[in-house]
């Protein structure tokens, strides 16, 4: 009996060890791939295999990053882009939640609006950006609206679809307990749609960033999108590539932040 449990334990330990080793191995390969890529890039630029004027190099990017930091302009550009993205993300969430709620309340409204939503959702939103510039000028408002335009229609559709997927019997339960349509919404539909709200939010933060960068390409004097366009126009490709790498980091941070918030909410709601 005793040897049995001991055997069990070692089996369990063995499994745990295998599991840890697997994860270490994956992390190692990820890091190695990154280092190899940087090394290959640096070496091929140093040996003249690629033209470092067009393709830059890790050392040039690092130098550019430091130089830009010193003039303080990079932090301002990053801050502007972050601010615009976060504002448009929050506005998208509020606006699409409001509209999806109205659509859920009124079947007639949702039937009337359905074709418009479908068309607006399939439209390439970058086509709207020039209009926004004419209507709203070249300030932050335009950029935020551009950011919203990319995410908002898909978001309304996902929220509304999520609301509709809630078990019809759970809504009947509310009615049998003497509840109203409002009770059905606040007690069943909204809490029942939290997983869909969260997954849509995760997609939206990325889309808002896309929209903001498109807006900055066309209209801005500040922000990473502006820095990329400006850098390419004056042939300072170090600046372009540095900005792109900063964007990669921002996208990753956004995703992770939303993921952490999602995780917290899931724990709170035990989902």
């Amino acid at each position: 009996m005793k040897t049995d449990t001991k055997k069990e334990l070692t089996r369990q330990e063995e499994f745990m060890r295998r599991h840890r080793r697997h994860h270490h191995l994956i992390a190692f390969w990820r890091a190695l791939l990154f280092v190899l890529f940087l090394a290959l890039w640096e070496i091929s630029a140093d040996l003249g295999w690629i033209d470092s004027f067009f393709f830059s190099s890790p050392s040039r990017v690092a130098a550019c990053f430091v130089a830009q930091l010193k003039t303080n302009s990079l932090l301002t550009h990053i801050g502007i882009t972050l601010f615009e993205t976060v504002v448009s993300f929050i506005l998208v969430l509020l606006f699409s939640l409001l509209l999806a709620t109205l659509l859920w309340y009124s079947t007639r409204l949702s039937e009337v609006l359905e074709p418009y939503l479908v068309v607006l959702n399939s439209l390439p939103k970058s086509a709207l950006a020039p209009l926004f510039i004419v209507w709203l000028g070249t300030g932050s408002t335009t950029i935020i609206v551009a950011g919203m335009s990319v995410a908002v229609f898909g978001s309304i559709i996902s929220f509304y679809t999520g609301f509709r997927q809630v078990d019809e019997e759970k809504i009947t339960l509310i009615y049998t307990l003497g509840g109203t349509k409002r009770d059905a919404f606040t007690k069943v539909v909204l809490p029942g749609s939290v997983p869909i709200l969260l997954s849509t939010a995760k997609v939206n933060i990325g889309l808002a960033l896309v929209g903001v960068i498109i807006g900055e390409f066309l209209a801005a004097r500040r922000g990473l999108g502006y820095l990329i366009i400006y850098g390419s126009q004056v042939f300072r490709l170090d600046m372009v590539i540095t900005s792109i790498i900063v964007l990669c980091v921002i996208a990753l941070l956004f995703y992770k932040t939303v993921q952490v918030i999602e995780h917290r909410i899931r724990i709170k709601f035990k989902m």
Partner: protein
Amino acid sequence: MSDILELKKIGYSYHNLHGETKALEDISFGVRPGEFVAIVGPSGCGKSTLLSIIAGLLVPEQGTILVNNPDGSLHYPRIGYMLQRDHLFEWRTVYRNVILGLEIRKMLTPERLRTVDRLLEEYGLDKFREKRPSELSGGMKQRAALIRTLALEPQLLLLDEPFSALDYQTRLMVSSDICRLIREAGKTMIIITHDLAEAISLADRIIVLSGRPARVKRELPIKLTLRDDSPLAARNAPEFQDYFNRLWEDLTHEN
């Protein structure tokens, strides 16, 4: 004793673009206070529609429902409705699930909450009030759903195949358990089921509906010599098989 609820020539049809589908036709029967009535019938015959009409979720197209309260008042009896599944919400604790009805009706009075506390204790759920529904067994979930229904102090309980989501063994125990608790609470009950054995073991009277459009085909009062025992023991009563055969005949000889 006079009926607390009397259905008179109830009729109901569903409408769509292809035409009209009659679900119920000329349905009349009464329910006495404290009585357990089971409604059986072929699947899809409109049993759930009938229950929705009694619950007031649907308005009948023909006929009327007469109310006859023992105290002479005219208000419609307070209805408790139990659906096919327990539908406890995973985002609420067990306690917040059972007070859902009170919360919706804005009746979270100390007196009502004491009733809920008492029921939780009686039904052995006291220790689980801060747990999530997924941590309860199938039987405990049904008990929690029953407390949620009883918290509103209904006079008439409607059960729509309430145990059909459970596996057979759990179902036998839970159905007898829940019905015992409802009897002890002194409520009147109408239960829909497709399980003839369940109907015979639980009910005082069985109403057999025909296929669509549903009509009352037979009313069968059940008198088992083991009445005071549990519904599980009722299945061993000598009359059990006779009742079963008669119901079986009724349901298989559709015309």
